[in-house]
């Protein structure tokens, strides 16, 4: 209809989408510093020209009327929405002064930072925090990959997250992951390989888009993954399906593990997972007998709360038992890159003194994902790989504990929260508690695209540029050896800057000048890729001429260097975890709230809740303001089985309340056979940016927010990593009466 004709003076920039971790390549057509149009980059290895819902609306996002474009300083009451426009320089000066004061009176540890997922140069944030002296940076790491990474690294020396499907995989297990609704390029890979005969096993309470293409679907009770994984271990060992050679030569602790899992029979697991024992066996056999095979990581286990570590641990051992580690077509431990400067190397972790590290909130209880565990594991990886995983993400304060420190001043007061690329009330567990903390914290600064509820409550809001306005390095935080670069299409619009500029700016004001020699992100990135040896003179040149660095795949590297564990073998009996005070072998822990341990609770809350995964066209809490996307799915829906719906008199499309001990939310009923009768699955991320953004409405951020339901008290958290419980909770459902509007904000 109206494709812009290319004119003279149009440059093509190799940018990226940046709206999710797949980070597809985007070609931006730019003239006079204006992006005329975008399209998927056909030469980009991730997406080959494809773009999902989110990538396609890049230009609608870029200059959306609701974007924050100027630094704002609060005048008037918190959340009143009265702002004064100030310059970046003034903002940074004032913020730095305030942080300096807080450091003086309460210690650097009284300053915490909250992050989101992707969209930021997290190494820069960590660099600032280390130099400032605070150990209390955090993301949603506990919910996303980090416990998995650390446990798997503890066991086999590096997390084997590189699924080498293209190397001839015969079986892929999607464990709590639905690429069909969240990771399009990934799904494409699966589709192609299925056509070549690869088996697909999907473990998911819901019959998702991915489950619909599976050879085997295991609809387990949400939160019962630990039981399933332990039963699989049992089957693989006791039916002799393990790789004898690999186990003999490259693992320690097999005999102890064998004895340990004797009790975890499929029959035992059946009552806990609600799966037929034969189905459990079928799954284990399919994985073990179709080699090479892969277990794709998904967030479900990380989000299980108190049973997260146990489940992750059990799942991790499956690869070792079947020899699916570092073999062609299986799960590879690429290790950190030898060639480019990883995140960890540029985080200035050495600058954080021991006594400050010891103050990291949560490190007294949840050792795995804080300094004690991270240090133990990082030292080991340094011995074998020469480098450590990124500390940003892998070594962080425990978010619920930080929010509680704001509220209770225990273990000590936290007086400032710097928020970047997240809306914590939406994305962190126990939303009501988070909101309380955001309202109470003395000093709140937010770097954002939008005036989210968190931004609304802030003392300063800094406007940040998005994908087309910034360069990007895609490298899995330096935990893999590949790197893809993308360049910015235009300079940030209006007075937006990048999060890097924020951290560096603050650093300069606080006397960290020497440690920030790179004036722009491109300079910092150039520094990082310099050693790749492509002879380029700038990061842009790297993107324009090379774009990516994919080293030759090496297999069986452990043959040369061993596994980065104390024994240099895969530790089926993990001495590292034991040293940290955790079970050295995966030991069953029941879901955070369950009907077996707490039948009284189950009387009042008879249904099992999972607060579910991503769905198009959104990403977490993003894009609800893009009306072109919102049009396709404008209201929240939760899934409920027809039998259960009938029991509660709920019809398809009815508004209903879903309630747990923590609170209740309102979503519409999607009556579907896709889940079991006793399971309810809410959508996450919902807020209403079209509503009044000021207090007390705050864009109705609690009304349909699944995190109102989730549980973050210590009792619900995984003792190893601190993951709080988003899945496998107990809830009840009832129809909303007419006129029942908002939940309590």
């Amino acid at each position, binding site marked *: *209809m*109206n*494709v812009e004709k290319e004119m003279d003076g149009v440059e093509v920039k190799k940018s990226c989408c940046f709206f999710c971790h797949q980070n597809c390549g985007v070609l931006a057509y730019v003239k006079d510093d204006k992006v005329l*149009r975008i*399209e*998927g980059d056909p030469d980009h290895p991730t*997406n080959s*020209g*494809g*773009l*999902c*819902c989110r*990538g*396609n*609306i890049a*230009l*609608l996002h870029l200059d959306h009327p609701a974007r924050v474009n100027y630094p704002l300083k609060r005048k008037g009451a918190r959340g009143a929405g009265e702002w004064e426009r100030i310059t970046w320089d003034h903002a940074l000066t004032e913020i730095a002064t305030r942080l300096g004061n807080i450091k003086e009176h309460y210690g650097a540890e009284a300053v915490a930072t909250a992050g989101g997922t992707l969209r930021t140069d997290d190494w820069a944030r960590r660099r600032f925090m280390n130099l400032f002296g605070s150990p209390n940076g955090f993301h949603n790491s506990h919910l996303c990959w980090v416990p998995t990474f650390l446990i798997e690294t503890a066991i086999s020396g590096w997390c084997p997250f590189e699924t080498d499907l293209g190397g001839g995989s015969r079986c892929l297990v999607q464990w709590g992951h639905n690429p*069909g*609704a969240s990771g*399009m*390029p990934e*799904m*494409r890979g699966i*589709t192609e390989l299925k056509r070549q005969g690869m088996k697909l096993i999907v473990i998911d309470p819901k*019959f998702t*888009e*991915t489950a*619909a*293409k599976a050879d085997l*679907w295991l*609809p387990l009770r949400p939160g019962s993954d630990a039981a399933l994984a332990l039963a699989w271990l049992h089957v693989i060992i006791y039916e002799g399906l393990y790789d004898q050679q690999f186990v003999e030569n490259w693992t320690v602790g097999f005999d102890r593990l064998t004895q340990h899992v004797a009790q975890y029979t499929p029959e035992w697991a059946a009552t806990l997972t609600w799966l037929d024992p034969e189905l459990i066996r079928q799954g284990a056999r399919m994985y073990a007998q179709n080699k090479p095979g892969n277990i794709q990581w998904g967030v479900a286990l990380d989000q299980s709360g108190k049973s997260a570590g146990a489940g992750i641990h059990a799942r991790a051992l499956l690869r070792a038992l079947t020899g699916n580690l570092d073999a062609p077509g299986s799960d590879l431990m690429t290790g950190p890159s030898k060639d480019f400067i990883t995140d960890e190397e540029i985080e200035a972790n050495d600058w954080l003194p021991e006594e400050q590290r010891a103050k990291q909130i949560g490190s007294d209880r949840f050792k795995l994902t804080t300094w004690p565990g991270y240090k133990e594991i990082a030292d080991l990886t340094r011995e074998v790989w020469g480098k450590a995983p990124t500390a940003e993400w892998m070594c962080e304060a425990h978010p619920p504990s930080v929010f509680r420190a704001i509220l209770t001043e225990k273990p000590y007061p936290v007086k400032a929260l710097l928020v970047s690329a997240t809306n914590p009330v939406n994305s962190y567990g126990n939303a009501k508690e988070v909101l309380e903390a955001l309202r109470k914290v003395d000093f709140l600064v937010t770097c954002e695209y939008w005036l989210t509820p968190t931004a609304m409550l802030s003392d300063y809001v800094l406007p940040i540029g998005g994908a087309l306005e910034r360069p990007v390095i895609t490298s899995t935080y330096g935990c893999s050896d590949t790197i893809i670069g993308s360049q910015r299409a235009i300079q940030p619009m209006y007075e937006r800057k990048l999060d890097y500029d924020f951290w560096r700016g603050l650093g300069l004001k606080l006397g960290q000048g020497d440690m920030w020699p790179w004036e722009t992100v491109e300079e910092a990135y150039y520094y990082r890729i310099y050693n790749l040896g492509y002879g380029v003179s700038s990061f842009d040149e790297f993107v324009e001429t090379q774009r990516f660095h994919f080293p030759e795949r090496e297999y069986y590297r452990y043959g040369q260097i061993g596994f980065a564990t104390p024994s240099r073998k895969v530790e089926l009996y993990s001495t590292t975890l034991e040293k940290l005070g955790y079970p050295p072998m995966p030991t069953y822990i029941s879901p955070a709230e369950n009907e077996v341990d707490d039948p009284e609770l189950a009387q009042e809350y008879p249904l099992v809740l999972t607060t579910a995964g991503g769905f*198009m*066209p959104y990403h977490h809490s993003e894009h609800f303001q893009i*009306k*072109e*996307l919102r*049009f*396709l799915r404008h209201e929240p829906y939760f899934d409920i*089985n027809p039998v259960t719906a009938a029991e509660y008199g709920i019809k398809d499309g009815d508004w209903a309340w879903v309630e747990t001990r923590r609170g209740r939310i309102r979503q519409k009923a999607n009556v*579907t*056979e*896709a*889940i*079991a*009768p006793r399971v309810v699955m809410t959508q996450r991320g919902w807020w209403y940016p079209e509503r009044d953004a000021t207090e007390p409405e705050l864009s109705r951020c609690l009304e349909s927010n699944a995190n109102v339901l989730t549980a973050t008290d210590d009792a619900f958290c995984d003792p190893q990593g601190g993951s709080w419980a988003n899945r496998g909770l107990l809830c009840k459902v009832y129809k909303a009466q007419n006129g029942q509007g908002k939940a309590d904000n």
Partner: protein
Amino acid sequence: MARYAMVIDTRRCIGCHSCTVACRTHNHLPVEMIYNPVMTIGPTGKFPSLHLSHLPLLCMHCANPPCVDGCPTRASQQREDGVVFIDQNKCISCKTCIMSCPYGARKANHETGTVQKCDFCRDRLAEEKLPHCVATCHQKARIFGDLDDPTSEVYKLVNTEKVTRIHEELGTEAHVFYIVS
């Protein structure tokens, strides 16, 4: 002369709606206008024996289009290559074509006072580019090309796979074919 056609492989389609969004965004459609909705069929069956599929719809660019001859202003036209389009200068939105289309492909635009629909992105075809919905699909579930060209992907698929058309019984001779599992 080419005869454009599309094959949609529903075995690959996962109902992500990216094609819907790409089309409406890059064609600058009014927010309520959708040229190519993607239907979700199911899950059918009873838990846990279920089946789920998706059905992207669009203008079928029929060989026997019910919408063209009925247009009183001659705004609705079909090119030799099969593309059915609407001349926006001639259309006065009498909606006869909307009433004629068994696929619901045509949409009234209340701002312009005309009717609009998918035209296989004919501007892009002129530049030898694929329609937006085809280019954007990660799953490569949409295959587009010249049905008269024996070397084209669409030709091969239509002649080797089991393809079906929607509303075959109405005799529209749709030129969008579906591969169903």
